[in-house]
């Protein structure tokens, strides 16, 4: 979708806030990130659905809310959407349906659990990849209105395949709740191809792109 989240190459933004070096500023940010490690999304939620949920935020909220605040609102949304929480529960922060939580995890268990969160997104398919390393590929100009990982700045552009990753779950389908493998490539674009002759001719921008993103 051509949403507000698709920031790559947008102009008008000022200096990078380079002094803002910390990962977290507030306790609530640490707690939001921690909760996101605890499996509190509706069962079966695919990461692309989480990302697409963020993209469907009210646009001015997307730009003005901080990273973890967006996550929090998205957690509320996804749980209401799945019928896990009611809107009343979310707005009050309380429920009548009390239950005893599972035994608490220790720090050691959390660190050990974290090691198991390295997810394999590859998904072999029976078809052969259309493109090989070194080959030129051209991206589509028009995409669909759902979730996609082809940013606007890299559409209708020609680059070179530098890596083939096998087939990975296609993000566009994942956002629809479907696990579907498709060939994935890393494609290198000359900066001049994306931004015009003023860019340094030596510079490149690379993206991971699925086969259906190409014409």
């Amino acid at each position, binding site marked *: 979708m051509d949403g507000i989240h698709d920031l790559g190459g*947008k102009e008008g933004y000022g200096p*990078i806030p380079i002094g803002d070096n910390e990962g977290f500023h507030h306790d609530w940010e640490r707690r939001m990130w921690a909760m996101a490690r605890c499996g509190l999304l509706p069962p079966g939620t695919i990461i692309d659905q989480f990302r*697409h949920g963020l993209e469907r935020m009210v646009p001015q909220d997307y730009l003005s809310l901080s990273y973890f605040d967006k996550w929090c609102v998205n957690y509320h949304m996804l749980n209401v959407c799945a019928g896990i929480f009611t*809107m009343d529960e979310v707005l009050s*922060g309380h429920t009548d349906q009390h239950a005893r939580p599972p035994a608490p995890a220790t*720090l050691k268990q959390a660190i050990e659990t974290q*090691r198991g969160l390295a997810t394999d997104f590859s998904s072999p398919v029976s078809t052969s990849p259309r493109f090989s390393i070194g080959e030129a590929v051209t991206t589509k100009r028009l995409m669909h209105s759902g979730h996609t990982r082809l940013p606007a700045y890299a559409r209708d552009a020609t680059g070179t395949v530098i890596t083939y990753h096998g087939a990975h779950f296609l993000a566009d389908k994942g956002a629809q709740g479907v696990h579907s493998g498709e060939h994935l490539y890393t494609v290198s674009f000359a900066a001049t191809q994306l931004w015009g002759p003023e860019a340094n001719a030596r*510079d490149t921008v690379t993206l991971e792109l699925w086969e259906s993103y190409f014409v």
Partner: protein
Amino acid sequence: MSSFESDKAAKIHRQLHSHLPSDPALRVKALESLVVERGLVASETIDAWVEAYSEHIGPMRGAQVIARSWLDPEFKARLLDNAAEAIKEFGFEGNATGHLIAVENTDDTHNMVVCTLCSCYPFSILGMSPSWYKSSEYRARAVREPRKVLAEFGVELNENIAVRVWDSTAEIRYIVIPQRPANSDGLSEADLAALITRNSMIGTDRTLTTGGA
């Protein structure tokens, strides 16, 4: 299968926009009290994860891996061949590093990592990303004018050095192997790791030094 649906999501977001408390601390508190009352997770488990990401999972992990690659050519070869596997030698695999790739700076190449569409980051090896990495400014500008962005970070690149910007659009994540500082012969892995800045592993720092780094 969850019942997520795009237009329904947007509708709920509009309702939340109108009715959620304006203070983000209160919004997060509401989420925490709700999940704890429902028995979905214990508060102490959330505490444990806060501590894990405050004290134990951070850029010192990436720095140790890079330092090892400078000292051990065979390890460096494994890291460049398959970083996701290589970091298992340290037990550093985890969040968002299932498909980790290491890219190496050289005299004529500089690598820089961004995620323009969200803020993807290799958490288990670098910890929580810095705020600037998640900023709209970095996401918008890193791909279009990387040399200006680097200059703001104090990295002045010769025109002859090629900049490679890696936009993490799928589940592949990147870590930059910065160049080993001059005059660092004889330093231990731990001493070398202490010279490696977090930003150098993202690619917004380039020249590491042994003195007062």
